[in-house]
């Protein structure tokens, strides 16, 4: 069965204190790995798609990387506005657009 595990569950950082969020996955026939940001009471906001091991993508203070077993979301010099829950999801082959999500990492960035 497909599994996505995110760690840590919660992370508290000081403004400017860089860190990484982890997403480990077990899925056969990975078609893509997605990162989303979700603010309380809102829908997930798309950040990145990674398709193959070794791929990296960047957006502002965020950088996502992918290996054959896990993905990392690196946050460089975070700001309070980066506070949110970050969700990782996998899409496997076999048709359809089903995403299997992890439970997320709740990030709090303090001044």
């Amino acid at each position, binding site marked *: 069965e497909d599994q*996505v595990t995110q760690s840590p569950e919660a992370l508290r950082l000081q403004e400017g204190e860089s860190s990484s969020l982890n997403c480990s996955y077990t899925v056969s026939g990975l*078609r*893509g790995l*997605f990162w*989303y940001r979700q603010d309380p*009471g*809102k*829908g*997930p*906001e*798309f950040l990145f*798609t990674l398709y193959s091991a070794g791929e990296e993508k960047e957006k502002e203070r965020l950088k996502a990387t992918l290996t054959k077993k896990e993905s990392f979301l690196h946050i460089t010099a975070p700001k309070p506005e980066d506070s949110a829950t970050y*969700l990782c*999801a996998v*899409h496997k082959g076999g*048709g*359809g*657009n*089903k*995403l*299997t*999500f*992890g*439970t*997320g990492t709740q990030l709090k960035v303090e001044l």
Partner: protein
Amino acid sequence: DAGVTQSPTHLIKTRGQHVTLRCSPISGHKSVSWYQQVLGQGPQFIFQYYEKEERGRGNFPDRFSARQFPNYSSELNVNALLLGDSALYLCASSWGSNTEAFFGQGTRLTVV
């Protein structure tokens, strides 16, 4: 550019009632998927529709049903509501059947 729109934003229903949630995808997107998100958990896949045909179904009871209309909008129906159906219901649209999904703001359903 309008994103994915869902209605209503909030809803309170009584156990045993029926509910219909609506979703309009991004213009040009032909696929709509529905997810249920319980507090503290990641979204769980319910259905996917592409070109008005069901392309995927998650592990949800038959009380849950959906359909997609010719304009690619979609409805999610839930019958005989249970307290456990209380959740944020999310709609996601994508251009194709296997492409990136963009989510709406969700409908917060509370069953009392």
